[in-house]
């Protein structure tokens, strides 16, 4: 007996914003969860279990918030579970939720991920002091920028590829009402002229800090068939991790990333990744990660990912492999939610529910998340057809 076919029948998101001062953490989650239930045509009593995820508790200073969220998410008397895999957590959470349906443990599962970054300072939370040593590196940008420099050196990519990605994603975000950044008047020149924060990375090439939540309702084959509305069928889920430091580690394209991609594409029966995937939502918190992941995920040959960016192949308007039509992490970054947003946006594409940022005729879409020192990976593939 194989896995139970699993369907996404509901997606809900909050508007992403720098501060959601009008709602508590519970209220924020509730907003996304209620919207997911509404699109799934479900009520709280239809949900068998809740699987939630967020990044480290230091991002809000609420320890184990899952414990206080049972009432808000209708899971009093039901199983509640929290997943934690650093920045990839939103993706991993969706994978764990899907596994509960795939394994026939539960029929209908609500999965949700969030961050309320306005209540803390992510750079502080990611740079906690340690005795006997001192910090020599500022936040996530300080960690990832040398890796991007290595990619730039190895690929010999033109200097402004990162700016092209940032400008494209911000343009995409204008078509997504939920996106945090809506920079209507932004020009490519402004992206280029933005100050270097972590040279070679400009301020304009980094993600914002957002409050927000994203939720999905997953159900079994019978539930998907019976759903009176669009459905995204999950055709593959995979997670991998690796140590973040060992001799000869490929930090530009970590082994765990490539293994995770091989696994998820094999599950979905996809051979020509670029040709068979219609829309990609990948975790790009810093601009150069788009060409880097395009290569690591097998959408482009090694050293050639930037050519897809430069040619416009990854743009929603006219590209054959639109990447982050939602505007991506570069336009909305509620850290814990960011991975789930990628997964949910992939689902919306094959459901035909992406609105203005819909990729015409999308039938198969790819959702991706990574976290830690590029050492945790979560991916899924969703399809219009069962």
């Amino acid at each position, binding site marked *: 007996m194989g896995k139970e076919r699993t369907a996404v029948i509901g997606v809900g998101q909050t508007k992403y914003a720098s501060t959601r001062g009008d709602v508590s953490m519970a209220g924020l989650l509730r907003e996304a969860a209620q919207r997911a239930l509404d699109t799934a045509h479900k009520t*709280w009593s239809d949900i068998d279990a809740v699987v939630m995820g967020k990044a480290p508790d230091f991002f809000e200073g609420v320890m184990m918030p899952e414990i206080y969220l049972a009432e808000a998410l209708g899971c009093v008397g039901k199983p509640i579970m929290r997943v934690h895999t650093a920045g990839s957590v939103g993706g991993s959470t969706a994978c764990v939720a899907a596994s509960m349906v795939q394994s026939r443990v539960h029929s209908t599962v609500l999965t949700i991920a969030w961050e309320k970054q306005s209540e803390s300072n992510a750079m502080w939370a990611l740079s906690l002091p340690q005795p006997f040593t001192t910090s020599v590196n500022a936040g996530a940008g300080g960690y990832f920028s040398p890796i991007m420099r290595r990619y730039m050196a190895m690929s010999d990519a033109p200097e402004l590829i990162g700016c092209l990605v940032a400008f494209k994603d911000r343009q995409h975000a204008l078509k997504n009402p939920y996106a945090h950044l809506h920079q209507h008047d932004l020009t490519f020149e402004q992206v280029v002229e933005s100050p270097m924060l972590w040279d070679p990375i400009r301020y304009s090439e980094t993600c914002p800090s957002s409050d927000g939540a994203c939720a999905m309702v997953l159900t079994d084959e019978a539930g998907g068939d019976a759903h009176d509305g669009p459905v995204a069928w999950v055709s593959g889920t995979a997670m991998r991790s690796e140590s973040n430091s060992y001799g*000869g580690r490929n930090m530009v394209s970590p082994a765990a990333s490539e293994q995770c991609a091989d696994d998820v594409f094999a599950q979905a029966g996809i051979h020509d990744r670029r040709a068979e995937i219609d829309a990609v939502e990948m975790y790009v918190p810093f601009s150069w990660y788009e060409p880097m992941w395009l290569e690591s995920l097998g959408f482009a040959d090694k050293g050639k990912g930037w050519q897809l960016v430069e040619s416009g192949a990854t743009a929603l308007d006219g590209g054959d492999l639109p990447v982050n039509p939602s505007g991506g992490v570069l336009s909305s970054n509620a850290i814990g939610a960011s991975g789930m947003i990628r997964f949910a946006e992939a689902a919306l594409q094959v459901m035909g529910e992406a609105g203005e940022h819909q990729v015409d005729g999308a039938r198969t879409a790819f959702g991706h998340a990574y976290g830690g020192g590029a050492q945790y990976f979560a991916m899924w593939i969703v399809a219009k057809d069962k």
Partner: protein
Amino acid sequence: MPEEVLQAPLVLEYPFTGTTGPVVGRFLTGLREGVVLGVRRSDGTVMCPPLEYDPADASPLEEMVELPQSGEVVSWSWGGPRREQQPFDQPVAWALIQLDGADTPMLHAVLVDGPEQMSTGMRVQIKWRDEREGHITDICGFVPESDETGPKTASKTSTTVDLDSVEAVQSVRTPIRLNYSYTPGRALSEYLYAMKDKRIIGDRCGDTGQVFVPPRGVSPVAGKATIETVDLPDVGYVESFNITRVPIATRPDLEPPYCSAWIVLDGASVGFMGLVINCEPESVRLGMRVRAVWKPDEELEVSATNILGWEPTGEADEVIADIERIGRVGPQQKRGSAS
């Protein structure tokens, strides 16, 4: 090993804020005004403190009702001697107190001199703080109902305060301070002691030959304990770097722009982050040879901060063979199945 494993205090603290949302915000606004509010559920029962959503059916709760300011101790335990950071100036009993008119108890303190003055079922009433800000500590605690020694124990009524006409509480300060006793462990302790003698040590994986610096005690490639300690020179090369224009909160001494780099020491298989100093950040290159800049001998201590940074040696640049891979992939370094 001659030295002991190191240990040091580590304090993590941050002045978090919490957004209350409308229901808890209303409750806290009430406390600031000297009023206690509960929330009514669809079955008519009242929860205090209020929740935003009904535990039974997850429906949103909105109807706030004012409650009397006295009630009954449902259960309690004696808190023992006063502890630092507790918002009381005396020992207290922790108690579940069900206010009259409420169907759920709230956790708070009863301000009595000793456990002999506590009993389940005893009647207590609120003692308010004089200066209130919209926080649970606006209630100093509860005192026995007959006790009239505390100031401002008198109840207010809803007629005295119109909560719609005062500024609503929307967030609450939730500072967190965690006191840890940090230990870097055996392998890193050895490394830190060696630093006092201006020595850099790593450790070697028996299966792959990889050398890790700082040492870890375990090989992430083989999943086994490392087999030996290795002395490394204080010279190496820049594997990659950035030029950072963002300050580091814990490094007020470090003025941007500065160069953060992955440094790979000669003989090491992995890099670690350090600052490249004594040169213009713009002159730093991939493969640039660097050496450690140590603190003056008289300032050396058991600490990695003995290395102030890394400066150019002036030697020819290292040729990085495989630009994607961080660290050396020598022929002696068989890679694990993860490769």
